[in-house]
């Protein structure tokens, strides 16, 4: 009997147990833990497609950057925490992830008003473009009527045009349009020549602020349409999260039991390795800020099922080696090196699938491919380091270890 090995094994068990206990809190921490996808915490995922304008001018990357800046501004004005906005230059798209929006419909409404801001004279001719407006702010009406106003500031160029407009059409209504939709049509009271205008007559600050946001963020260089939208209610997301965690726990427990029943002592090692495997994968997610989505969790659970495979291949191989007359210790060594070749070939093919899926996939599919890929690499790593170490320690305890513990029947 080698007492040293037993002590090492016990220490290892304690270390893993401590690692699990210490990992739970940082991993599930709402702000610093593994980030959850919108489908798990509620929110809106939006894909906006830039449409070429009527003149058919191509959309440049610069246009996309401008559009992104404007949309980002609107998102911030909405008070969304940690918005994720990405530009897909190839397809001319903006991808937005807005988590925890209380009223997604309203949010999309404001964002989606990606239209171009124009000022039109009473005859409907466009006089001013949104780009010539430098600022728009909501505020209280200073004249004491108790209403709310939007204060406009124009660029010097815009100020000139606005002066012309307001001088020419005094007493008439000028229209402020977003695309072809009338936002407001104030009456010109006095000619405004200093580039500082005020639109009065809003009954609530909210209404004024909404218009101000739309005017301030100015015209997008391109108009955009929604090509994809996934909106998940907050409690629905939590429900999905609970369900998938439950699925994961049940799956894990049954795999544990199966391995125990079938492989006895090595089964314990396999289960133990699975815990280490799970821990490694979750920490990798945490480290690289991999956003966990519903398909991602499904991929993770699936990868647990597949991670056991390495153990099964090794154990079956060890059994064969022992049956062929080797000692347990020699069997474990040659079983490992032989199984390694098998596993590498088998896993590379799966990895090929995961990589192509990651490369071609979009959105949630990418998340799934990533969890699958991380899972494959982590399972190889766990088996080669941890499982091998533990098995060596066990067979090193005594030369007279009963092979039956490894599920080997000597009589055949």
């Amino acid at each position, binding site marked *: 009997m080698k007492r040293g090995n037993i002590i090492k094994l016990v220490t290892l068990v304690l270390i893993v147990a401590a690692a699990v206990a210490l990992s739970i809190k940082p991993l599930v921490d709402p702000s610093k833990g593994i980030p959850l996808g919108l489908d798990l915490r*509620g929110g809106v995922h939006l*894909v906006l497609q830039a449409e070429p304008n009527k003149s058919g001018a191509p959309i440049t990357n610069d246009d996309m950057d401008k559009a992104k800046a404007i949309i980002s501004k609107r998102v911030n004005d909405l008070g969304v925490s940690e918005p994720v906005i990405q530009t897909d230059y190839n397809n001319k798209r903006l991808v937005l992830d807005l988590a925890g929006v209380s*009223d997604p*419909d309203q949010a*999309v*409404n404001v964002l*989606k008003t990606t239209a171009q801001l124009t000022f039109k004279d009473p005859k409907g001719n466009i006089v001013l473009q949104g780009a010539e407006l430098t600022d728009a702010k909501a505020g209280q009406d200073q004249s004491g009527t108790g209403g709310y106003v939007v204060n406009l500031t124009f660029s010097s160029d815009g100020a000139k045009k606005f002066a012309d407009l307001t001088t020419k059409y005094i007493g008439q209504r000028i229209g402020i349009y977003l695309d072809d939709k009338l936002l407001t049509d104030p009456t010109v009271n006095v000619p405004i020549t200093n580039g500082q205008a005020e639109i009065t007559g809003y009954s609530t600050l909210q209404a004024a602020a909404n218009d101000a946001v739309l005017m301030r963020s100015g015209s997008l260089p391109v108009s955009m*349409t*929604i*090509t*994809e*939208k*996934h909106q*998940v*209610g907050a*409690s*629905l997301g939590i*429900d*999905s999260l609970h*369900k*998938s965690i*439950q*699925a994961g726990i*049940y*799956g894990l427990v049954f*795999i544990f039991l*199966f391995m125990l029943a079938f492989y006895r002592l090595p089964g314990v090692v396999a289960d133990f390795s699975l815990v280490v495997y799970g821990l490694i994968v979750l920490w990798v997610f945490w480290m690289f800020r991999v956003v966990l989505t*519903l*398909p991602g*969790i*499904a991929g993770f*659970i699936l990868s647990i*099922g*597949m991670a056991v*495979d390495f153990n*099964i*291949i090794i154990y*079956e191989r060890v059994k*064969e080696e022992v049956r062929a*007359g*080797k000692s347990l210790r020699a069997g474990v060594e040659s079983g490992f090196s032989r199984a390694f070749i*098998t596993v590498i*070939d*088998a*896993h*590379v*093919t799966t990895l*090929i*699938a*995961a990589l*192509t*899926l990651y*490369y*071609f*996939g*979009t959105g*949630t*599919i990418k998340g*799934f491919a990533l969890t*699958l890929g991380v899972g494959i690499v982590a399972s190889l790593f766990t088996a080669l380091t941890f499982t091998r170490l533990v098995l060596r320690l066990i067979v090193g305890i005594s030369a007279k270890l009963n092979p039956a513990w490894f599920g080997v029947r000597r009589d055949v």
Partner: protein
Amino acid sequence: MEKGHPATYEEVQKIHPLYFNIVKKRYWWFALSLLVIVPGIISLFIHGLNLGIDFKGGTMIEANFTKAVTQSAITDTMKSVGLSGEVQLSNGNKSVLIRTEALQQEKQTQLMTALQKKVADYDKKTLQVDEVGPSMGQELTRNAFWSLLIAMGLMIAYISFRFQFVFAISGIIALLHDVLVVVGLFSLFQWQIDSTFVAAILTIFGYSINDTVVIFDRIRENETRMRRGDSYEDMVDKSVWQTMRRSVNTVVTVLIALFSVFILGGESTKVFSLAMLIGVFSGAYSSIFNASQILVEIKTHMKKPTKGGKAVRA
């Protein structure tokens, strides 16, 4: 080998209580596979697949109302805002699933307000809206097709490099078998597919070949130990049985994982886990019963002209 010897064919046969010659009966296995695949392919040509909005484009709204509602109330309200589409009720007629064309935001708001006014109040916290433009669906299909093709090419290259080209071909045929089984069954039963179905098919692609490669690995190992006069068929049969426990046990653990996702994982992963369940099962079947047998078939045909077929087997 310092002591003992690698198991002989006879020993392998004795270890497995259920032993029978899997390779000899190969035409039965091929027939069984065709029995599942052919109806699927026919259905695929006649009915196609039941494509969800991820492919066709459209809007899917899932709302939970505060009281039970009726199908006609919903359809009438939809009509009042100029929309039509499929309506499904569940959960004591409180949960409603609406499928309709791709809506821009104004239209959606209009519909939801109309529903709230004319039908009943709904819970905003559990509202789920999925909308996909028609062009996205084509993109998804195109991407899926390309990724399958590229993954297949890479796999053939890798297996040819590590094994032999015939192994790669046999493996890929077994792989296409699994994909056809899944796609065919989804067409036969007209289960609706979404973008996760694509992920499932590709995972099956990766997983099934993994299963096959483990058996091929054993064939490769045993092939080098073959002596003159040994039958290739018997060697393959031995290899399949030597890896049988592993094949069965691994598929069991994966199925356990998938079953728990299927049963407990909620609606949104149902399509994925169902496709995976079928695919993994079919993958295990094709790995054990088809892939190596196809290999034997190709190898015997290749050898015939030089060695005169059955005469070699004594």
